[in-house]
């Protein structure tokens, strides 16, 4: 389904729109307050952008540094070129552990590679332990927001879900009661399942450290109690140095939840004897990231730290919600990231899902110029012939018209003649949809050039 079609369905769902609007406004206000408290926020944004940019520009060096530092600390490093390889690597480790269940920390990357489905096909059940991910998993649903994936569901729907799918009778729709039910349901698994799978918020090249930021404590449980831990991370998650965390850990929580710090930030380096998992694996994932890296304009998309601040200010996202994007990465960042991770083969129309208002760029903690990349990707689609012949011809004709003075002036005269009839004419095909929400600009009777000549 195209974004246009999916968005039409989403726009008709007024409950979902109300849920999403309330959520984005609330988080947006919290973020603004948390950011206003930091006197040098702009400087921090610049620092964040330059740290990530420096990492990306020498990613080969940092990947090898990370690998050797982690190996020295007792970790095992795996390299996966695509989703399938990553899933196979994880499955091999799980099989070697003879595990039939794994516990999972919320991870967009493992959702991106559809790891749960791959595990399930191999007879291994993946238990999502983040409350929102658990709700999405129980409902057989899709996530609608990077940070609060179940935000399209209200408390009554969630209570119904718990009663039906978990068989918990004595739960009412108070979030406190629902949270307690989730704790009860997951507790024994969290304390006993021997293999856990996580993503990573950051990883440090010089030390081999992995960092996870979370609120509920399920992340701490998964990264501490099992005997084996597998972290699947995109290669863009690296930071060069330990002290870079001093910048990124100030930017991320304030941008994401509007908190000074999230309740729990865990950092671990390989294996620590007597404390935590004694077997630790990292799977470094490409899956289209090197394609994005190869595009000097699109490259900046890989700076993203998945804070979701851009979702909460986007007028398009606020109206359609996340599911219409049909990508694990929705909103403005999804509109540039998702197509690039598939060489524009999937989600190719997402760069059109924007008014180019620029609000996303203003809040981005690592200063990704999302409008610039959106426009660039629209151009790439035309150049790579991924749009219809009509649009390509129209753009080529426009380019030819603008290229020479004579043709430009001729077009101006044509517009003056046509201004009356065209305003009321029937516009065919896609032009009709475009016209539906726009008035044609008034064409002056005389152009500036004509006026200048007659002066």
């Amino acid at each position, binding site marked *: 389904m195209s974004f246009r079609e999916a968005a039409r369905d989403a726009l008709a769902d007024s409950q979902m729109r109300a849920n999403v609007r309330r959520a984005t406004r609330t988080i947006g206000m919290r973020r603004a307050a948390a950011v206003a408290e930091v006197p040098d926020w702009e400087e921090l944004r610049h620092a964040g952008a330059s740290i990530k940019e420096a990492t990306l520009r020498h990613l080969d060096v940092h990947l090898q540094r990370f690998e050797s530092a982690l190996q020295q600390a007792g970790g095992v490093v795996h390299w996966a070129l695509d989703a399938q390889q990553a899933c196979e690597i994880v499955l091999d480790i799980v099989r070697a552990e003879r595990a039939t269940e794994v516990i999972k920390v919320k991870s967009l990357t493992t959702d991106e590679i559809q790891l749960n489905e791959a595990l399930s096909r191999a007879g291994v059940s993946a238990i999502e332990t983040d409350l929102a991910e658990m709700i999405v998993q129980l409902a057989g649903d899709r996530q609608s927001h990077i940070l609060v994936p179940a935000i399209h569901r*209200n408390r009554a729907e969630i209570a119904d879900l718990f009663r039906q799918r978990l068989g918990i009778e004595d739960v009412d729709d108070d979030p*406190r009661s629902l949270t307690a039910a989730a704790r009860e349901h997951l507790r024994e698994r969290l304390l006993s399942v021997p293999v856990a799978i996580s993503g990573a918020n950051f990883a440090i090249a010089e030390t081999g450290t992995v960092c996870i930021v979370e609120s*509920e404590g399920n992340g701490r449980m998964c990264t501490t109690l099992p005997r084996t831990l597998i972290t699947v991370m995109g*290669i863009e998650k690296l930071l060069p140095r330990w002290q870079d965390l*001093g910048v990124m850990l100030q930017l991320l929580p304030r941008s994401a939840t509007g908190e000074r710090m999230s309740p729990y930030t865990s950092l671990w380096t390989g294996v620590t004897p007597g404390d*935590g998992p004694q077997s630790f694996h990292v799977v470094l994932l490409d899956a289209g990231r090197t*394609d994005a890296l190869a595009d000097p304009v699109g490259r900046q998309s890989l700076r993203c730290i998945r804070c979701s601040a851009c979702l909460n200010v986007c007028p398009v996202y606020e109206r359609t919600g996340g599911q219409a994007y049909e990508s694990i990465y929705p909103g403005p960042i999804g509109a540039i990231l998702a197509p690039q991770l598939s060489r524009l083969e999937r989600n190719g129309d997402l760069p059109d899902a924007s008014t180019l208002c620029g609000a996303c760029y203003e809040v981005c903690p690592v200063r990704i110029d999302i409008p610039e990349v959106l426009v660039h990707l629209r151009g790439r689609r035309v150049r790579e012939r991924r749009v219809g012949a009509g649009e390509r011809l129209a753009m080529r004709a426009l380019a030819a018209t603008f290229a020479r003075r004579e043709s430009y002036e001729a077009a101006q005269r044509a517009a003056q003649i046509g201004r009356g009839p065209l305003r009321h004419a029937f516009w065919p095909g896609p032009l009709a949809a475009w016209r539906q929400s726009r008035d044609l600009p008034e064409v002056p009777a005389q152009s500036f050039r004509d006026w200048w000549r007659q002066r």
Partner: protein
Amino acid sequence: MNAREEMLDRVRRALADVPSDERPAFEPRPLGQDSAAPSTKALADRFLERANDYSASVRRTTAANLAATVAEICRSHAAKRIALAPGLPRSWVPSEIEPIDGSRLDTAELDAVDGALTGCTLAIAETGTLVLDGGARCGARALTLVPDLHVCVVEEDQIVDGLPQALAALQPKRPITFVSGPSATSDIELDRVEGVHGPRRLEIVLLGGGS
């Protein structure tokens, strides 16, 4: 070519436009903090204010009253069997509780105690954060994770200004946990509920000098 070589090769090809003499930037960028170092008193006040913002309970006490304060906290939670970090000073442990050596417990045993008593490696004023690093006063990670009550003693001179100062003082090789308030979720209609999988109750004791 194996996956590792292939990926590194893809990365290098993707970065063909980056000048070959451009070096990776490794120079430190001290940012986000004022350069003037605040006094211990100012840091302690700020830590107290910020930790209170998380609705973590923070009590200020002196060395002479520490054990009594810990006893009072345990009493208020009806917590009797308390797992201790291995390196705690004896003077921190009140006689009213049943002390248990926290370093010898497995997960199920930790789940059965009433609470855990630890120190920390340092604390951050700006964000009201406790930092645990697996050292003798912190204990292994599970100690402050599985029991439902965590009582943490912060000494005033352990408090640093902000995150960059904390990171500079920490040893990356240790398992490190930053704790900023009790575990929480806002996943249902953004209503904040405190106490999920981490300890549902966090009690901080701020240990000051004389006054």
